[in-house]
């Protein structure tokens, strides 16, 4: 039985994991870089260990330091969160070797799913549909061209070792094939030291739909239905929802079965996600598997009413799953908005800095998973995710209304955030109607980035507030500190008071 968990992460996910630990009576251990001494996860944890300088590759990514902290704290298990070491096969192995439980899958599952081509082959073996394309890395330029002609245009060229869009090329026209393949290969070589590429049929107006799965060490594997993640900006998810507005019960059941088959094909254990690319006719193809907890896991938690972190821990405790596929259902609708410290008006430039004020949204149907607080300075070294706003209601329409209500009440001063941008997404007709694909943000860019024109009155209200703030400062400099908050102020020759301002 796990009694103490080291969380090898920071930010909102570290706290989210620790909350479930606390509910289970498990002690939590934080690790932190020198830039994170004041971070909330350090304050929330029972124990805290400094593991080095600010840059991740000198702290959160250094396996030796994490293991050392785990040993010093006598932690039974390590939860990697998402990002950092969460999909590092070596780390999974190392934990095993050191006798520490890794709250995640085996290195075999991570490695198999981590290599795109191996994953494709494994899925084909398990009869999980994959995007038509090559199953072998192609090193030869001529071969690539042949294959593309066979599959038929348009196609995507992707780096075998790749990720994050690097080495990826879309080819729509015959005459662009040669240039695209060669630039993809050279970019892959530069980024990953391996110029292997593979080729996939390009799906028009694609939807990104993923299935959450849970598998225990006793051969049980279930899926917890889908998440629709097509609202993306530069391949980064912005908003997720469940159920998917385009899904049908029949396709859901089929895809769920394939998701379970995919997980079983790698003897998966723990929580994982099977990502599919889906076209408008609900043809679906395996895209990849994320062998960890996802950022967007809370929408599934709400709709399926399961605590995924607790399930992860129970699985590592060797308990059999007590959730049965036939008992699970989707209950109402949930949407997650990711709140980033970034400036939508300035090309979404990250905007780290000091949180001068924060009002968090609360109330019925609202879950807010964050970590920043008033006076906290978001460091520039890590992901600019501030928090996740998760909203539930019985229907999709009411969920959107509730999300707008929550965004209305969510205020952060000090850093720019994506809140106004997210609010505008809720107003886009095609989003309201649930008719959108991964081109959604691109297609609606103009509407989304066009700030509402404020009225003269609103501008004057803003001016008045600034003016009073100025007057108050002036007053403070001109009169000595007064203790009861009420002072007489005669700058303008008339008796005026700025009390309570």
């Amino acid at each position, binding site marked *: 039985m796990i009694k103490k968990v080291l969380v090898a992460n920071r930010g909102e996910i570290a706290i989210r994991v620790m909350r479930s630990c606390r509910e289970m009576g498990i002690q939590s251990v934080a690790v932190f870089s020198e830039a994170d001494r004041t971070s909330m996860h350090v304050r929330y944890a029972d124990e805290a260990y400094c593991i080095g300088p600010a840059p991740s590759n000198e702290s959160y990514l250094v396996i030796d330091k994490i293991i050392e902290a785990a040993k010093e704290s006598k932690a039974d298990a390590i939860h990697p969160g998402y990002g950092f070491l969460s999909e590092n096969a070596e780390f999974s192995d190392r934990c095993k070797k050191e006798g520490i439980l890794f709250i995640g899958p085996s290195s075999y599952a991570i490695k198999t799913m981590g290599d795109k081509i191996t994953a494709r082959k494994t899925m084909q073996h398990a009869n999980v549909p994959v995007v038509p394309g090559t199953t072998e890395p192609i090193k030869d330029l001529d071969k690539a061209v042949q294959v593309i002609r066979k599959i038929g245009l348009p196609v995507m060229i992707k780096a075998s070792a790749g990720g994050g869009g690097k080495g990826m090329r879309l080819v729509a026209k015959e005459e662009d094939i040669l240039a695209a393949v060669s630039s993809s290969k050279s970019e892959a070589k530069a980024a990953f030291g391996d110029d292997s590429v593979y080729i996939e049929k390009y799906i028009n107006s694609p939807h990104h739909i993923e299935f959450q799965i849970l598998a225990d060490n006793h051969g049980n594997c279930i899926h917890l239905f889908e998440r629709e993640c097509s609202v993306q900006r530069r391949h980064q998810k912005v908003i997720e929802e469940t159920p998917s507005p385009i899904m049908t019960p029949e396709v859901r059941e089929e895809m769920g079965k394939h998701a379970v088959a995919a997980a079983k094909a790698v003897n998966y254990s723990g929580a994982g996600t099977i990502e599919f690319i889906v076209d408008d006719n609900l043809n679906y193809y395996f895209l990849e598997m994320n062998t960890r907890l996802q950022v967007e896991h809370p929408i599934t938690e709400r709709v399926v009413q399961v605590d995924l972190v607790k399930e992860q821990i129970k699985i590592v405790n060797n308990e059999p799953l007590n959730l049965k596929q036939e008992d699970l259902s989707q209950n109402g609708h949930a949407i997650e908005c990711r709140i980033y*410290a970034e400036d939508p008006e*300035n090309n979404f*430039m*990250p*905007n*780290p*800095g000091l949180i*001068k*004020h924060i009002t968090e949204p609360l109330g019925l149907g609202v879950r807010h998973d964050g970590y920043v607080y008033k006076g906290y300075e978001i460091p*520039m*070294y*890590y*992901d*600019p995710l501030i928090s996740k706003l998760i909203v539930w209601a019985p229907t999709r329409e009411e969920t959107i209304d509730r999300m707008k209500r929550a965004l*209305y009440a969510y*205020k952060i*001063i*000090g850093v*720019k955030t994506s809140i*106004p941008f997210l*609010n505008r997404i809720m107003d886009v007709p095609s989003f309201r109607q649930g008719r959108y694909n991964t081109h959604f943000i691109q297609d609606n860019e103009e509407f989304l980035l066009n*700030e*509402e024109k*404020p009225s*003269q*009155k*609103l*501008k*004057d*209200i*803003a*001016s*008045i*507030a*600034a*003016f*009073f*703030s*100025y*007057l*108050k*400062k002036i007053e403070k400099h001109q009169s000595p500190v007064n203790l009861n908050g009420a002072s007489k102020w005669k*700058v*303008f020759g*008339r008796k*005026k*008071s*700025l*009390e*309570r*301002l």
Partner: protein
Amino acid sequence: MQYDIKLNDEQYKIELLDLKNNKAKIALDDRIYEVDITEVENGVYSIILDNTSFNVELVETENKKYNVNTLYNSYDIEIIDAETRYANSRKKEDVDDASFISTPMPGKIVKILVKEGDVVKAGDTLIIVSAMKMESEYKVGSDKIVTKVLVSEGDAIDGHQKLILLEDIENN
């Protein structure tokens, strides 16, 4: 006393006509407002105008300069008082013939591509800065000479910090 106030690119006259407790009468150009205004939290104002409730949140970014937020809008507002006017009139001349590179946010210097004395052409990248895993290239807008490099590679920098000083070529 009347002040000038600049909101983004617009400029108004603003004057406090009367103030009693929270109730203020204010003129903005020829628009007169009677508001109930109170600072409820540090930097957060609640304003009631004709029974409509407004929430305004602001931060003083520089002396007398504020970033002000209403519901979904954000404004840069500056109060221009006598002191500012005087300072502005003094600065006027030497603003145009000097120039520098700075970044809008804190970050870390990844690479400096120029050294003092280099002649650079419009569009040349002078420096690469990373913040939150994203690298940005900072370019020069017109032909210049690099007069001073104030930072080194690996340095952590603040937003709006001067990184590289430049001068027009004609002046040299």
